[in-house]
């Protein structure tokens, strides 16, 4: 084992400093207990991995917190009813993704009572076994809420298999506009710190650090005060520097270590969870509450009252905007997530899901709508890349479909943070090229796997046929040998008989008998 390095310099390579634009929402409290929408569209896949299996049928009555989708497959997460009501249908709805592709969802008509399913008072989580705690996190359907939406329990169990030096709780929130983690840290600091302690208990980390960017002084103060109460939790202030919130970059800033290419942070003894995930884990373990809602930043110049709201999963985005005073004018762009990595929304009907950190309605002045011009090789993208890659060459090769060369220039390590495209004076949509190239490579890999599988089958068949042929030949040879032996024996017997007869007639000819020769040849 290498000597652990506990302290990083707080710095990352490259990166950019986009205009934060967080003031509109960072000082306003989270709006909770929103009026219920007339329908909730709860997708069965709000996580990375396989769809949850629906446990309800149209017409069923469900209670708040009731399990309606069971995790199935190797990577999956459970889905619970966000409120009480009636299941209207289980059908495909448009998902918050630019493709507008549909996915299966449980459509619930709320009854307005918001009646909870009965939850037994859980035992003190600090007295429980870590594996039991991980299972409880799994049952609560908690996923990574910073954007990765990877099932949290799987990550915790992975962490248990490694010697974790440092648990990092990510409160950096480097995306412009978004203040959901900021508000959560300001308002629910004790819960986050307790969640951090619980995660630390589960993975048995030596050290737990809550890392917060220096542009959130109120959150830093709140978390520091909460951490001081319990001790043993460090608060590290990192510079506001995009993409500080990316796990690899934050690990570098906090520990000074780099995650080796193609490896996981576990391999260098680090595990990163988002502050909102820490909060959700605390709610699940201390109160037994499944994950039913999240805090989302609603912002952008086209929102009348920008603020953070705690929204039930499945709430249509249109309803969320309505709660925030509606839209003022037609937005130039509607996004889910921040402006650096967020995705364009195909419609206002799409639901809020577990990974929705923000919904933005941006005005024309807030978006980049320039058409692109040719690359002038200014290499600003090279300076801005936090991964040390060469985006201009990656794009040039991706455009020419030279994907191997694009991989060599860094496509294989690209985290799609968009720093390169943010600084490109030619307004080239670099990330779009990289996403295309990555998709193309994935296709090639899978078709190659298919080919290899088919080739394996063909080879196996060839070998089988060859073995059959050999077996047949061997059998034939054996048969022939047996026959030959028989013949030879017969010939020998005959020869002996003849010799015996001849002896009686011409005794001198014994040694030159042709039958003698014949027998010698036939019997190797």
């Amino acid at each position: 084992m290498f000597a652990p390095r506990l302290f990083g310099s707080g710095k990352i390579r490259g990166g950019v400093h986009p205009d934060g634009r967080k003031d509109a929402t960072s000082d306003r409290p989270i709006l909770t207990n929103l009026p219920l929408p007339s329908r909730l569209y709860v997708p069965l896949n709000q996580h990375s991995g396989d769809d949850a299996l629906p446990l309800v049928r149209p017409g069923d009555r469900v209670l708040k917190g009731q399990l309606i989708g069971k995790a199935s497959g190797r990577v999956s997460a459970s889905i619970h009813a966000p409120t009480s009501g009636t299941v209207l249908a289980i059908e495909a709805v448009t998902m918050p993704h630019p493709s507008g592709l549909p996915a299966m969802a449980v459509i619930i008509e709320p009854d307005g009572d918001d009646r909870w399913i009965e939850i037994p008072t859980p035992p003190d989580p600090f007295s429980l076994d870590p594996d039991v705690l991980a299972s409880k996190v799994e049952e609560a359907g908690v996923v990574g809420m910073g954007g990765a939406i990877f099932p949290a329990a799987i990550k915790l169990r992975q962490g248990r298999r490694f010697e974790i030096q440092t648990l990092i709780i990510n409160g950096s929130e480097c995306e412009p506009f978004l203040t959901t983690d900021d508000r959560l840290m300001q308002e629910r600091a004790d819960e986050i710190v307790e969640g951090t302690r619980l995660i630390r208990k589960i993975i048995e980390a030596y050290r737990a650090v809550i890392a917060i960017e220096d542009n959130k002084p109120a959150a830093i103060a709140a978390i520091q005060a909460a951490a001081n109460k319990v001790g043993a939790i460090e608060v590290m202030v990192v510079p506001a520097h995009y993409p500080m919130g990316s796990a690899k970059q934050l690990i570098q800033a906090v520990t000074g270590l780099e995650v080796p290419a193609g490896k996981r942070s576990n391999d260098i003894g680090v595990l990163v969870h988002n502050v909102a995930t820490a909060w959700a884990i605390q709610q699940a373990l201390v109160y037994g509450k499944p994950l039913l809602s999240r805090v989302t930043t609603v912002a952008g110049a086209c929102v009348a009252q920008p603020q953070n709201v705690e929204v039930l999963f499945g709430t249509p985005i249109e309803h969320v905007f309505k709660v925030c005073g509606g839209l003022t004018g037609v937005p130039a762009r509607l996004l889910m997530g921040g402006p650096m990595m967020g995705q364009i929304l195909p419609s206002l009907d799409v639901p809020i899901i577990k990974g929705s950190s923000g919904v933005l309605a941006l005005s024309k002045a807030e978006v980049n709508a320039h058409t692109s011009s040719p690359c002038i090789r200014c290499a600003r993208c090279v300076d801005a890349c936090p991964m040390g890659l060469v985006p201009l060459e990656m794009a040039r090769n991706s455009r020419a479909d030279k994907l191997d060369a694009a991989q060599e220039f860094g496509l294989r390590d690209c985290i799609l943070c968009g720093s390169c495209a943010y600084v490109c004076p030619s307004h080239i949509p670099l990330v779009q090229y990289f996403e295309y190239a990555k998709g193309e490579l994935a296709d090639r890999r899978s078709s190659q796997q298919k080919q290899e599988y088919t080739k394996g089958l063909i080879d196996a068949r060839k070998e089988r046929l060859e073995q059959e042929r050999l077996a047949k030949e061997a059998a034939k040879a054996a048969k022939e040998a047996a026959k030959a032996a028989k013949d030879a024996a017969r010939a020998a017997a005959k020869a002996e008989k003849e010799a015996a007869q001849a002896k009686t007639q011409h005794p001198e000819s014994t040694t030159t008998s042709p039958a003698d020769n014949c027998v010698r040849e036939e019997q190797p």
Partner: protein
Amino acid sequence: MNSITHELPLRAAPHAHDRSSVDRIMLKVCLALSPATAYGLYLFGWPAIILFVVTLLAAVATEALCLRLAGLPLQRLLDGSALLTGWLYAATLPPWAPWWIGAGGVAFGLIVGKHLYGGIGQNLFNPAMLARVAVLISFPVQLTTWVNPMPLGSELAPGFVDALAIIFANADYAAHLSAAPSGVDAMTGASWLGASKVAVGAGTDVGQWLAADFPLTAAFSGHIRGSLGETSALLILVGGLWLIWARVISWHIPASMLGMLSLCAWLASHFNGHLFPGPLFQLTTGAAMLGAFFIATDYVTSPASATGKLLFGAGCGLLLFTIRSWGSFPEGVAFAVLFMNALTPLIDRFIKPRAYGRTLGGKTLKHSDMRKIV
């Protein structure tokens, strides 16, 4: 779940931008060039102004023609790249060169050096330097005639009409001057680089000669014979440092190019002062400063990585020293830059930044490597 409520463009993230643009970059470079050029125009008067304007107009006209022929939108003219090529080329010309040297050269540079490669961003060589070398080889007489400084408004300076005759009709202004009552013998002379080359050839002790005659302060401030926009090392330095401060260019190429030139010149003059001028002479004469800050730093034709840039600049400096010391031309900035331009794709192929989580060679980082790096 029915209506698609908005006509939204499908576009990948990021949706924000730092508001930089190609035209703004080109504008900043022009702005940084302008003090030195303005001083040159003042120093060499109306003929220089006319040559400068003609060259710029020719550059824009050629660009427009090429864009049209390539079927590209004429808005591309607004990126300012052709203007900058014309400007840089004009800055390296003898101040009173005939109009066709300016117009023809820049047209050649833009057509052959840029648009035949596919236009902006695609060219292998710096178009301005390609044009400079082409006219230097083709018309050596016109390209080595250096007029004495005759600032605007001074007694000997030609007026606007005289200037038109000088630039467009090749008028013999020297004859006009010698006929004047003040009786000026010589209007032109060799550049300092040319003179030092001649001195070396004649067996003069260069070190002694320069120590006695070379006006270092004038060479630094710019009141000296030389090209239209490159006489004032001081003003070019100011513009170049501003470009670095404004993050338009990085320090790597200017520092390594000037550093390598100075190092070579210092070593050579230290060991053989009779034959080799010292670093201050090398830095303040010819196109060394202009080349280091404005020509070698051309984005398209220089490497992308910081290490690559250092190597590129050092190569330019070394070649510049070599050509100035032993080549047949007194000045070598254009040749040195073009040669290194040709090596740029190779440099970019082999010199890349170290990627996160990998060794410099591109292998996955091991724990033992990490201890070395952190």
